[in-house]
């Protein structure tokens, strides 16, 4: 992108759920959809937002995956490699990166009261195709709180649980958009 093409105001901020990174870095039926979403970030349609908590979740899932396929514990080298990949990606993509410790500071209000409020008041969603009910849990709601504090406008995810949080942040259901 040349300097003349750089927009003066940043595009809408989309908080990126952990699974979106995982699907993009792995081979899965949802990888093309995650890929198209990141292409949109690359082309300036959205400004990605993430936190150190998301990186922790990503590293946790990938360590489990490596341990499961190798049938032996993952190593510190694995952790370094996994971190390097995601950090380089975040940096090159221009994704806005927050330290989760900063976001949970009491200066910005109570964290768990907000999370509790989301858990108690989020709407249920029934998927008409699977007839299953979906609702955010505590850890999901914590991500919603972090996303709101990070100033995100959208919550980009593949998880139907987040459909009921539109009172706090607009869910961007990547299943439907791509």
């Amino acid at each position, binding site marked *: 992108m040349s300097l003349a093409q750089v927009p003066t105001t940043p595009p809408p901020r989309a908080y990126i759920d952990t699974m979106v990174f*995982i699907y*993009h*870095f792995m081979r899965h039926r949802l990888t093309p959809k995650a890929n198209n979403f990141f292409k949109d970030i690359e082309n300036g349609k959205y400004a990605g937002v993430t936190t150190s908590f998301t990186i922790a979740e990503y590293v946790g899932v990938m360590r489990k995956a490596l341990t499961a396929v190798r049938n032996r514990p993952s190593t510190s080298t694995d952790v370094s490699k996994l971190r390097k990949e995601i950090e380089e990606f975040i940096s090159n*993509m*221009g994704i*806005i990166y927050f330290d989760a410790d900063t976001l949970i500071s009491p200066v910005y209000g109570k964290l768990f009261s907000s999370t509790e409020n989301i858990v108690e008041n989020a709407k249920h969603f029934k998927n008409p195709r699977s007839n299953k009910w979906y609702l955010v849990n505590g850890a999901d709601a914590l991500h919603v709180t972090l996303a709101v504090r990070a100033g995100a406008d959208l919550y980009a995810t593949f998880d139907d649980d987040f459909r009921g949080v539109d009172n706090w942040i607009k869910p961007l259901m990547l299943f439907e958009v791509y």
Partner: protein
Amino acid sequence: MTAVNINAIPKRYFPFSSIDDTIPPLKKLLKKSNTQVKPSGYFNENIADSFYNERLELGGVFTLRTPAPIMRWHPAKQGTTAKFHGCLSKIYPELNKINDKGLDTLIKNMRNREE
């Protein structure tokens, strides 16, 4: 007067009351002297007074602090999406043994404990 529908309020099992143990107990204070002690603090009945700030009435200007990111937004380096597409499967070819359902389960267990 506003009517409150008690049934609409979620039932709370925890009272959310806390005891400030940095304040000496009232009984001890009363035993030591004859002075009258009026309990005060955030949880007394005049809770509105606890939040009164005269600077607001005097036209004081307040700024709301918002969290600052470690890395700010900037235009992406072109080609990054393609470069990292399926990158872990290249670094760790053994991860290709995990099928879609297996990966979905790992992701689901990231926040739930449904095995």
